[in-house]
């Protein structure tokens, strides 16, 4: 539902979780399976007297992302303090960027509501540190107490801010999917890790005040929250209630949004330049980072079409995830690229989605083997699908699955035997065929399939039946 009166802009917090250490200290970023507060040090706990030291690699990653989002990189960039009290923020200020962010004025292409490509403008990309994580005993509004885990505190975040260019929840989702896709291509981000991406959405109806729905971590959640907001704001408008500028929280369980604070309660963050860090002159870094930038989704898609001669839809499907694209290229080098495209985009991805597993669960070598058997006529298409499913569900390798399940296409002699005996047994059908009823042959082919327990190729069986009928 593309709706002219809906205005959506996003602020996306991306954790650069492929970095080895945190943004301002040496603590490891590999905390996801660790007990709370075990990946901390005096610096990320903000103990008195500690100072931040900037992780150079994080700046490189940030430049990489900003370039991929077509931003202009600022030659000199610096950090500010954003002051506010919250228990997940041990210094009571967040080191972030304000004036002079690392990247300004970018854009990316998404598939718009009408199916056409649409440009979403990026206002800015800036770096900041992640606060810790609060774990509430119960729900946020009714918890008797909360616990703090500082493992996450000090992780490198990028905030990507868009212009209000989206017109529907679906476009917002499409933007998020595309952003994630790009980030994974850049090898700076693993979207599967908890808390990897958190989204604040700004949504308003034309003429109405802006509502910010904060801190949703799933793309689907954003889509649902925005859809809820549109309905809520419309219905308020119908009842003559004016929307005020406010911040709302999305309750994932109830699929509704609830108000947190209105504009009057807005914070004054008292931004000022972080005196413990010096300004960064990064202009000299940009050419090198740019040179090392990997091929991005749109470019890869175009190359797949021209290099492998595959359909654009297939190329798009194959490049929507870097792991799938790499898988495809691996397979396409060894079997027919077109065949590989069809089988990965149309069959394998479907089977993976159905099981909600990633492509890492399937070996490219196995797919090559399966497609090879198929091309050589050793198995049928139906058999190939069966092999893929069996490997996904119970493991094994193609040769063994084919043998164990008896999926090998019947040997030609055996088929020919079946054809001859079928022709001998189906006298009525043979007579009908001879008297000009060509369809009667299907009955005989059916008999052949029955005799071979489906291992014969139907087309091949058809040809052989005709051959036998014509020679007698």
């Amino acid at each position, binding site marked *: 539902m593309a709706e002219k009166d809906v205005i959506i802009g996003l602020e996306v917090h991306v954790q650069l979780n492929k970095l080895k250490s945190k943004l301002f200290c040496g603590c490891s970023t590999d905390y996801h399976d660790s007990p709370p507060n075990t990946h901390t040090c005096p610096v990320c706990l903000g*103990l*008195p*007297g500690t100072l931040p*030291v900037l992780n150079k690699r994080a700046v490189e990653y940030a430049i990489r992302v900003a370039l991929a989002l077509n931003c202009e990189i600022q030659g000199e960039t610096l950090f500010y303090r954003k*002051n506010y*009290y919250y228990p997940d923020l041990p210094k*009571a*200020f967040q080191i972030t960027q304000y004036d002079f962010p690392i990247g300004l004025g970018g854009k990316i292409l998404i598939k718009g509501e009408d199916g056409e490509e649409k440009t979403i403008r990026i206002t800015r990309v800036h770096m900041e540190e992640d606060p810790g994580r609060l774990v509430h005993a119960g729900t946020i509004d009714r918890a008797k107490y909360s616990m703090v885990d500082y493992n996450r505190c000090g992780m490198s975040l990028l905030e990507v801010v868009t212009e209000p260019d989206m017109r529907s929840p679906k476009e917002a989702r499409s933007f998020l999917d595309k952003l994630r896709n790009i980030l994974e291509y850049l090898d700076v981000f693993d979207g599967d890790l908890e808390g990897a991406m958190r989204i604040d959405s700004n949504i308003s109806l034309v003429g109405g005040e802006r509502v910010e729905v904060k801190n949703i971590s799933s793309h689907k959640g954003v889509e649902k929250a925005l859809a809820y907001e549109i309905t809520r704001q419309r219905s308020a408008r119908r009842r003559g209630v004016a929307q005020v500028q406010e911040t709302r929280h999305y309750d994932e369980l109830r699929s509704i949004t609830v108000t947190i604070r209105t504009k009057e309660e807005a914070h004054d963050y*008292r931004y000022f330049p972080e005196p413990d*860090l010096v300004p960064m002159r990064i202009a000299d870094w940009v050419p090198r980072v740019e040179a090392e930038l990997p091929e991005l989704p749109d470019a890869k898609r175009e190359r797949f079409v021209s290099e492998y001669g595959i359909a654009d839809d297939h190329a798009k499907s194959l490049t929507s995830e870097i792991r799938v694209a790499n898988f495809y290229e691996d397979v396409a080098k060894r079997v027919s690229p077109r065949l590989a495209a069809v089988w990965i985009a149309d069959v394998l991805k479907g089977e993976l989605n159905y099981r909600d597993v990633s492509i890492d669960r399937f070996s490219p070598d196995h797919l090559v083997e399966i497609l090879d058997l198929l091309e050589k006529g050793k198995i049928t298409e139906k058999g190939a699908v069966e092999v893929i499913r069996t490997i996904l569900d119970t493991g094994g390798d193609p040769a063994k699955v084919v043998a164990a399940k008896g999926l090998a296409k019947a040997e030609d002699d055996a088929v020919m035997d079946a054809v001859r005996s079928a022709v001998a047994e189906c006298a009525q059908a043979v007579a009908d065929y001879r008297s000009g009823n060509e369809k009667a042959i299907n009955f005989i082919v059916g008999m052949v399939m029955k005799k071979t327990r489906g291992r014969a190729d139907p087309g091949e069986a058809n040809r052989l039946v005709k051959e036998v009928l014509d020679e007698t």
Partner: protein
Amino acid sequence: MLRELKEELAAGASAEEKVSALFSKIKKSKLNAYNNLSEDSAFKRAREFDSAPWSGLLAGVPIAIKSCISTRGIETNCSSRILEGYIPPYDAHVIERLKEEGAIIIGKTNMDEFAMGTSTESSYFGPTRNPWDLDRVPGGSSGGSAAAVAAGEAPCALGSDTGGSIRCPASFCGIVGLKPTYGLVSRYGLVSYANSLEQIGPLTLSVEDAALVMEVIAGHDKRDSTSIKSDVAYLSGLDGGVEGLVCGVPKEYFGEGVDPEVEKAVWDAISKLEVLGASWKEVSLPHTKYALAAYYIIAMSEASSNLARFDGLRYGLRLGADQDWHTTFSEIRAVGFGPEVKRRILLGTYALSAGYYGRYYLKALKVRTLIKQDFERALSTGGAGVLVTPTMPFPAFKIGERIEDPLSLYMADVFTVPINLAGVPAISMPCGFAGGLPIGLQIIGRHFDEKTVFRAAKAFEDATPYHETVPKEVA
């Protein structure tokens, strides 16, 4: 002096006995120079030294540390109730360096709460007294460190200087104190008051001692992004004299508001330097009159942000039963901070608020640039090699005399704060007495040119008796 102490220790004197003598003196003292002593670790280390002496620039030398410098395992409370009982799990860079060079930490010294003050009266643990006159303040904020060194309760000490906090108490207590060039000493582990202004530095009985301690604590540390690599061989060339050195005398640092006896002592010092081969010329630092305003805006703004972390949640003060987070931390802060700290947090918060930031903080930064340029011009090549001024406009005042009038206390920093705004190094050393109270001479140098400052100070010290005079109260 440290050289003699080191020689004694090297010749077999017992570090344990030295440390023990210090502790008994401290315990009998009326000065209140220390917040807490580290007797166990100091004795342990002294005994280890006695049984197997190690080498190092400060091998076996006891040292006192200002309470705002983080020491692993030793309470570091910044003389604030809100940090009472806080024992850090890590050492500041300077503490690591002291330990590497063999020093023995004997305790943490009293100070103005979070270094906010000029008299050490704002300490939660009560004021430190001036060893020259127990009714007077030792200066601040490193008053405990200065009083301890002046009274022989520590052979040397570390302080920190944000707007004069080493030089003022050095001046009031008649000892040597250096505020190094910004960036020369790592601030890693210094509990921040105003990050862009402060440095850790030595408080000692002699210029040579200050140079020795600086050799230990100065130098690059990758944990402080504002620290810079520099040649730190301060002891070599220390006796080079002042022949040919041009001393700039800034006209704005004399006249109205300056005690005539202070002014006279400083002019005598300038004459002495002249006799020793230096020359002097009048210079102008025209933006001096804006320095105090700019300093207090910058310092309070940064402080309001730095001190926001003290909420009692992870360490420090906790009051009775917890309520909701907001109430709990508000009450802890209401009770945990003293009035001067609250005043500076409030003023700093105001100065950074939307709508005021440009009018106050940004403007103060512009003034700071102008003041820095004043110093660069006066100390440019071909100009003066050092500047010579009074450290404080008057000698130590009485306890209680100014504490109720914050503005008059702020005004006392008029000759020290411009140095922090400019980031240049400055030493304070004794240059006379007024009514039995020490007078401090301030020698200011070019960025990272501590060597010339030390050389001039040493020449003056060698030619004068002031550093040898010991306060009567403790003699």
